[in-house]
């Protein structure tokens, strides 16, 4: 039986951690993820978990501690945001290439600089090529549910890759909302135990981890890693199916909202989906065929599936909540546009970079984007493809 509660996103993640009782938790405080290690410290202080809690001196060391712990055959977890994630950059790649299924609760916050504590996705997007699985949440329920599914995906023998469970800083992490929690025993049963075949300790043979990998071998190892990322697609769907069977809530690579006959659609990630859904409803009431695709799984990127979801749409705005500084659009735009390249009649597509460093995005703002798409659909003229939306100066606004 599910339990009705009211929790913030951070407490939801901490609760999931307590229920799973990981072997090692190493973390360092940074807004807005700080509450997670704080809640967890209390669980340790109250004897509610058997976890070894390592209060490291930096995020580089929290990831390194997780690397050591996971190589020793333990389930290792951490939590961070923004500069903390950036500080881990080097060792994120090490975790992935060593094929260590570490779980990182990422509470998305903009990357310094300039320093700013509010939400956008530049931190985890900056790590998108590090070889980590990335799953994003719209709200605290999804953050909790994604966390419960994380380890079964990342620890699966055909995957063995670390995983980031992302939620929007403050908007999701600090807002208290209704949530359905599952019972401790049911969670433990669903997640299962971690028993890797190889480990530094407790096996018949010693193990050597992290070689100097020379030219004749290193590329093959990287290809194996790439294959594992592809394998994760099936595992993600299998775990989601079992999650639905067990707890009744349905998940996929992305959520399609009113997409069945949509002519104009947004593709976006995270909490803005709630705002966009309200806007879709408003527009639908006026007869506008508006739809929304909310990306849940960004790594591996569900390329073919997304193309199928968008194939009948006339005009698409990809909403990037991070600036890639590529000079031609954000990371979600690059992936989405590439996904649609093979469609016989791809939709017209623009990139709307928005919400940077916590800039607010309301229903009226989203409506402007849909209206712009309608104009593109009618005139066939796409206009500027790469737009920064929601700036102080109206002059620069295209929408």
């Amino acid at each position, binding site marked *: 039986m599910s339990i009705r509660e009211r929790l913030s996103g951070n407490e939801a993640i901490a609760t999931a951690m307590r229920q799973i009782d990981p072997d090692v938790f190493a973390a360092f405080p940074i807004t807005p993820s700080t509450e997670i290690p704080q809640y967890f410290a209390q669980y340790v202080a109250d004897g509610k978990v*058997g976890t*070894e809690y390592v209060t490291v001196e930096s995020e580089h060391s929290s990831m390194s501690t997780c690397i050591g712990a996971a190589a020793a055959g333990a389930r290792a977890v951490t939590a961070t945001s923004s500069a903390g994630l950036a500080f881990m950059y080097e060792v994120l790649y090490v975790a992935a290439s060593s094929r260590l299924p570490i779980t990182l609760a990422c509470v998305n916050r903009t990357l310094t600089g300039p320093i700013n504590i509010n939400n956008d996705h530049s931190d985890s997007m900056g790590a998108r090529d590090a070889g980590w699985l990335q799953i994003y949440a719209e709200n605290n329920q999804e953050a909790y549910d994604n966390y419960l599914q994380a380890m079964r995906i990342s620890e699966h023998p055909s995957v063995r890759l670390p995983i980031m469970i992302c939620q929007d800083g403050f908007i999701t992490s600090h807002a208290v909302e209704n949530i359905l929690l599952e019972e401790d025993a049911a969670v433990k049963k669903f997640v299962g135990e971690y028993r890797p075949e190889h480990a530094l*300790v407790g096996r018949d043979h010693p193990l050597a981890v*992290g070689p100097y990998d020379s030219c004749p071998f290193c590329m093959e190892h990287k290809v194996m890693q790439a294959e594992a990322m592809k394998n994760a697609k099936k595992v993600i769907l299998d775990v989601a199916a079992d999650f639905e069977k067990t707890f009744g809530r349905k998940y996929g690579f992305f959520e399609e909202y009113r997409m069945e006959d949509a002519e104009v659609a947004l593709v976006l990630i995270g909490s803005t989906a709630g705002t966009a859904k309200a806007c879709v409803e408003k527009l639908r009431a006026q007869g506008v065929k508006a739809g929304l695709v909310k990306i849940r799984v960004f790594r591996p990127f569900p390329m073919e599936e997304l193309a199928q979801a968008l194939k009948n749409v006339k005009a698409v705005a990809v909403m990037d909540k991070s600036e890639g500084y590529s000079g031609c659009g954000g990371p979600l735009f690059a992936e989405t546009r590439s996904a649609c390249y093979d469609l016989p009649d791809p939709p017209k597509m623009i990139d709307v970079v928005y919400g940077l460093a916590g800039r607010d995005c309301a229903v009226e703002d989203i409506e402007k984007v849909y209206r712009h798409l309608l104009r593109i659909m009618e005139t066939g003229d796409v206009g500027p493809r790469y737009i920064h939306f929601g700036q102080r100066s109206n002059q620069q606004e295209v929408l």
Partner: protein
Amino acid sequence: MAYNHKVELSKPERFAPGHRLCAGCGAGIVCRGITRALDEGDKAVICNATGCLEVSSFLYPYTAWEDSYIHSAFENASAVCGGVEAACKALQKKGRLNEEYKFITIGGDGGTYDIGFQSLSGAMERGHDMVYFCYDNEAYMNTGIQRSSSTPRFANATTTPVGTESLGKKQEKKDLTVIMAAHNIPYVAQTTFIGNFKDFHEKAHRAIYTPGPAFVNVMAPCPRGWQYSAELLPQICKMAVETCVWPLYEVVEGKWMLSYEPKKKLPVEEFMRLQGRFKHCFKPGNEWTIEAAQDYVDRKWAELLARCSQS
């Protein structure tokens, strides 16, 4: 049990030959000595920082390590070791691991004094049950003899080259052993390869079998970087100790103890003369560099004696 060199050397080798360290490299001697200091049958996990040792001892698909071993980066070996140790504690507590392990970290001076210092300091302060061994060859050898904070003043390194306006490194060597003692951990020691390895062996053994964090700094000369021919190694180590450039001592639970006091402290030039990296110091007109080096050694030695007599 009294140290018996023959008996120790007859133990099965846990750092296998076939690694690719240069002939006469101090790092390899450190590794053989550390693994020999483990009691037979005791299991260990070795964590290693990036450096000459790592790239020479674990090249896929070969490893020189008979024990479990993990390398992940240059600056994080202590944190990785702390993670392994924490994992073992958790797995033991949860009944999923029955064996006991010793946790050993090995890093070069770059990975210890410099880029890995934060991670080392953090792990020691948190009190993980682990030993950190620094093989101190006084420069970044793996990348081609660049200066580190451990490089002594006046040494010629590729980022502190001798030139018309330069006499090598400008700064004195960082005194890391003293800094580690200031962490108030149960065991800190400084050693090198002397005679039959008794000093090194006993300190390594004590460090490994002291509960809680321990740090051992081992002077591990590098024939390539210090510019001497490999067979001079024993003499270099002996001179380092006899000149008090590298005193042998321990800090046990805060108590400072000299392991060896030279009967007659030799002048520092006896140590410097053996190495090409100090060659320029012996040129006419540069005599002051040797005097300055002597002053520094005298001051540090007096400080150490004072600490030991106060303890």
